[in-house]
Structures are given as C-alpha cells and as structure tokens.
C-alpha cells in the first residue's frame, strides 16, 4: 500500500483529528463548545476551521491552485491572526498534521507493518507540509498587515465627511 492511498482512504478520520487538535489550542471550556455546536452561524470558528482544514488536506494529497490554497489557509489563519495567539501559535497548527498521520498509521497497522516502509513517502509528505507552513506565514503576515491598514483607514474615515467637504478625496469603503 502506498502512503497516498492510505491518506485518501483515511481522509475523514485524519481531518477530524487534525481539527480536534486545532480546537485543543483553545481553553478547555471552549473546546467543548467548538466540538459540540454544529450550526455554522452559532459556531463560526469551528465551521470555518473545519472548512479550512478539509481544503488544506485536499491540497496536501492532491495539487491545488495557488489562490485556492491561500484561501484555505486564510480561512483558519485570519481567525487566529486576531485571537490571543502569537505568530507561531497562529500557524503552528499546520505542522500538527505530521503527527496525526503517523498516529493514524500506527493505529491502523498496529505493528503488522513497520511505518519505516513509508519513510520516503512520509519525508516527501512532510516536505509538502513544511511548504504549506511557509505559505501560512505569508497569509499570517498579510492578515496582520491588513489589520494595520484597516486601522489607518479607520482613523482617516473618522473625519471622512469633513475631508470630503474640503474637497480632499477619500474612499468611504
């Protein structure tokens, strides 16, 4: 069996576990909420994280257009970029998939097959995860820069009516 076949076959379980680990980065009381409430409007953090993780997993096992890939990263990172996380904590979730896959392999084969036999494939897969994490840093930085641009725009817009009156051009978006 090839690793890629295993990854395809166990997609649902791996995605679920990856997601649970991301939820685990919140306070224990919050983890319960994130796992329990399924409505996407009552629990947008869980919904959006879930959607993002599903997309990222597809990107890891298949190829994906750059825009689409960035969107998947952005689904999760734009939330974490404004929550109580450091830059490292905001993007560290990407690496968690490495252990999730190994856990699933160990659990599935239970010693019947040595995980070593996947070592080259696992190495290649890890490289893809590392690449994904690097793209994640870009997304995180974009979000933080966006935040600061918005702060600047907000200061301007507080007096936008006045500026418009004096003939100075200003966007009101």
């Amino acid at each position: 069996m090839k690793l890629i076949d295993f990854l395809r076959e166990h997609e649902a379980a791996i995605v679920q576990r990856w997601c649970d680990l991301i939820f685990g980065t919140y306070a224990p009381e919050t983890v319960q909420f994130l796992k329990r409430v399924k409505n996407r409007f009552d629990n947008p953090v869980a919904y959006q994280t879930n959607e993002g993780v599903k997309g990222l997993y597809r990107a890891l096992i298949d190829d994906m257009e750059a825009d689409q890939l960035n969107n998947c990263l952005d689904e999760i990172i734009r939330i974490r970029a404004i929550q109580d996380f450091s830059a490292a904590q905001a993007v560290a979730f990407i690496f968690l998939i490495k252990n999730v896959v190994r856990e699933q392999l160990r659990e599935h084969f239970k010693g019947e097959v040595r995980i070593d036999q996947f070592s080259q494939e696992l190495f290649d897969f890890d490289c893809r995860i590392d690449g994904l994490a690097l793209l994640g840093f870009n997304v995180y930085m974009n979000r933080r820069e966006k935040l600061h641009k918005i702060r600047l725009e907000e200061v301007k817009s507080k007096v936008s009516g006045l500026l418009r009156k004096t003939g100075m051009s200003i966007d009101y978006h």
Partner: protein
Amino acid sequence: MAKIPTPEEVSNISFQPPAKGWMDTKPEFKEGCYCNAASPKWVEWLEYPFPRNWSVRDADWKLPPNWKEIILEGFEDRLGRFRTLKLFMDICVRCGACSDKCQFFIGSGDPKNMPVLRAELMRSIYRRYFTTAGKVLGKLAGARPLTEDVIKEWYYYLYQCSECRRCSVFCPYGIDMADLTILGREMLSSIGLNIEWTMASVGSCYETVGHIGATPQAYKDMIDFFAEENERVTGIYTNVTYNRKGAEILFIVPSGDYFADPGTFNYMGYLLLFEYLGLDYTISTYAAEGGNFGYFMSHEMGKRLNAKFYEEAKRLGVKWILGGECGHMWRVCNQYMSTWNGPADFLEEPVSPITGTKFENAKNHKMVHISEFTADLIKHGKLKLDPSRNAHIKLTYHDSCNPSRGMGLFEEPRYIIKNVVPEGNFIEMPPNTIREKTFCCGSGSGFNGDEYLEMRFRGGFPRANAVRYVRDKYGVNHLACICAIDRAVFPPLMDYWVPGMDVIGVSEMVGNALVFPNEMERTTDLRDRPLVGYEEAEEEEGGETE
C-alpha cells in the same frame, strides 16, 4: 541552551481541565485587546473622581488608597438601589443557556466572555462580602476576596461586554448582563478607572455639540454642506433651520451621521425626506448629539448628557422630538429618558403632521424613531418612491442591538427597505443571526476606538460570518443598518472578514428613491455612484474630464 519547542508545545494543546481554576487565571493585557485609560483632563473636566495618569499596561494602576472601601460601599449602595442587581446576583442557576451566546466568546474563545462567567466575576465578590455562605465558606461557596487583580479582571472583561443583551434573550430568568456591566463600570469609574474613547467623547459632548467635539458653527457648516450636496446630486435644495423657536418638531441625530461617511449620506437622506414633506422641523446646535456615551460609563453621566434633549425641546417650544438612526440612543430614550429627565409634560403626544398617526408607543417620552415615522408615511401612500434608483444595491439588513432588543423595532426598517429597493434585492441573513437574536457589531458601548481593533474583530466575527454567507450565496453587496456606530465600525469589520461589502443607512436609500415633483433626471445615487442604466454615461463623463 534554549530548548526549541515542538509545534505541539507551541500550540499549547490541552483537552484537560485547566490546572488553575478561573479565579486564579489572570487576564493578560495585549495590545489591540484593551481600551486605553482615560486621560486626567477629561476626568477633571467632568468632575469625576481620582483623575490621574495611569496605563493599563502598568502593574500599578495608582488606585486611591481606600479603593476597596469605595468599591464595597458602592456595591452595597447599588444592591439597595437596583433590584435587578440584587436579583441577578442571586437567581442564576448556571444552566449554561447563555454560555455560548455572546459574540465575544464565540469570536475570542475566551471562557470568561461566557456571560455566566463574566457575571461570576462580580458575583464572587458579592458572595464574599454580602452573603453569609460566602463569608463563611469562601471559595467553596464561589466567593473570593476583592483584590487589585479582581479589579483588573473587571476592567478587562466589563469592557469586552458591549451591553448588547443577546445573552439575556436566551436566559430563562432574563438575567441582563448589560445591566451588570453598566453597574460594574460605574464602580470602576468610582475609583478613577475610565476608558479614553468614552471619556473623551463624553467630555467633548459636555462641552460642545457632540462626541467629536465640533463647535456649533462647524456643525451647522457640515449640515449646510449636505444641503448643497443634495442640490448638486438631485437638483433639490433642502432647506434647514437651526434653533428655530416654534418649530413643530425637534430633530436629533447621532454625530456619526454628520461627520463620517457613510452616515453623512444618511443625513442627506433625512434632509431630502423632510424637504419632500415640507416638515416643520428644526435642528438644534445644543441638543446636537443623539448618541450618549455617558450611558457607557455611568447612569449619572448618561442622565447628564441626555438632559439636553428635553431642555432644548422646552426652550424651542416644539411639540415632539424626532430621532435619527442610532442604536443606544434609542435604548436611552425608550428606557431611561422619562425617568432621568422627565416627565416631558411640556411636549405633546407625537402625531405625524402628514398622516395624522398617533405614535402611542412614544406617548410617555415623546420621541419617535425615523424608521417608525417613515414606515408610517409609506403605509399611507405619502411618498412617491422609485426603487429602481436603488437597483445597484443588493442588501441584507443588520438588526442593531439596541433598536431591536431594546425597543422591538424589527418590522419598520424592513418595510421601508422593501419599498425602496427592487423586489428580490433584499436578502435576510439566517434566522439565528437576526431580529432579537441579532449578533452585535462587536463595537458598541464605547469600543470603537482604533486601539481595540483586534477585540472588535473578534466580537464582530459572528455577524460578519452571516453577512459573508449571503454575499457568497446571493451576491449581496450592501449591509444596511439603523445605527451610527454600526455605520462607523462595519466598514473596517467587513474589510477584514467580508471584503467588498458596502455599508448603508436605511434613510440614505429613502433619499435615493424619493421622486420629487418636477425633479431633474437623476443619474447617480447620493454617493455619486451611477444608477443602473447610467453606468456608460458616467464613464463617458469621467473620460472627458481626464
């Protein structure tokens, strides 16, 4: 040598209950997540206690030596004066119905933003000092001593409750977290802990026409400009009078509508409507601020600022007051104004001079919401409207917290919208995010300072998430609202979560749609954007000028 952490260690993953209980977890004041301390000049100006230079990030908040006595005496005093406080301290059964309903909890994931736990920050002190069980059993009875850390925790979390009252909708006992927040903030203020955004706005409003500190001249100048803009865009000059004694109606709006876009376009809409009707109204340069940031720091300050309304109405001899699109202004006017500064027995029960409709709901406080007034006009066929002028606007409607949960204003704005935009252009967000269950913008109750952006974006995330859904599914491109804080804070919030979403007031769309007799052909809306069918003409015109 430093140990390099694994990604798992960096992520700090834990599904286990925390080693420390909530009482032992202290808040960490991170930049972007707390409101700045008020500068002493405003505290002095308003004659509030303990003006001093202090900073939230400092370990020492320079509390007065007897701060503990002041808080405990203040708590006891309020328990006697506010039956709600006494009840809300005692009746919570920890059912958890409110726990996941606060948008600050949903967006931040911080358990202390669960309303039940936020209230517990105050209840634990109540138990320790005002109940026998708490005095005897201490922590076992959920009690804890009052320390400086508790005060810092109050400051952090009472300024993460936007007083929106969403949690109270779900509480089987009707416990109103907003009431607790208001009283808790009063106590903080009593030891000189105030936030700059609120205090500066209040100080400015106390001194000049409104929160932004404009002079009466600048205020008049601005509104005159809207009249000129109306003439330029529509060909109709909208006549305005200021401080005119004997006018039938006094019109009051929040300052957001005359100093910041897109609220300013809403003001143009108000003026067009009144001109169309030939309404006998006036605008005051004294009662010139509909909003009331005083209400965000203490009942006393709320009352002080609100007093301008009735004082001015009496001085000018008007019959009643018409109010613009504002959020908390309506909570104040409907729930507090009569008791604070009434009775308004010198005013008459509001009657629409156009339709004859008696606004019985405003019998007591004598103030009518512009949406009630406009909806009544449309219902009686008094307005000629051309919805096609809003055809470029595909919108959803955000129920602002205070007009919806504070006064039940659900139908009127929707009725107006349906009459001023083409059929099919108005799309509702999912039911668990609108009407009485509406999510807060995340910036109410004095949070719209730029230093608080991260926290605002957390609190505003659930609202933005629902807006994104209708954008993606139905192509919605505008978010309508009837609150000036909404109009100020939604543009940045949307820019982060749902780019490409314009924010618009309901009265602006009325202004777009109103058909005046003998009017000139309109090719743009009030923002100079081309109407559907006139895009090419605009482009050509633009091309010529280049």
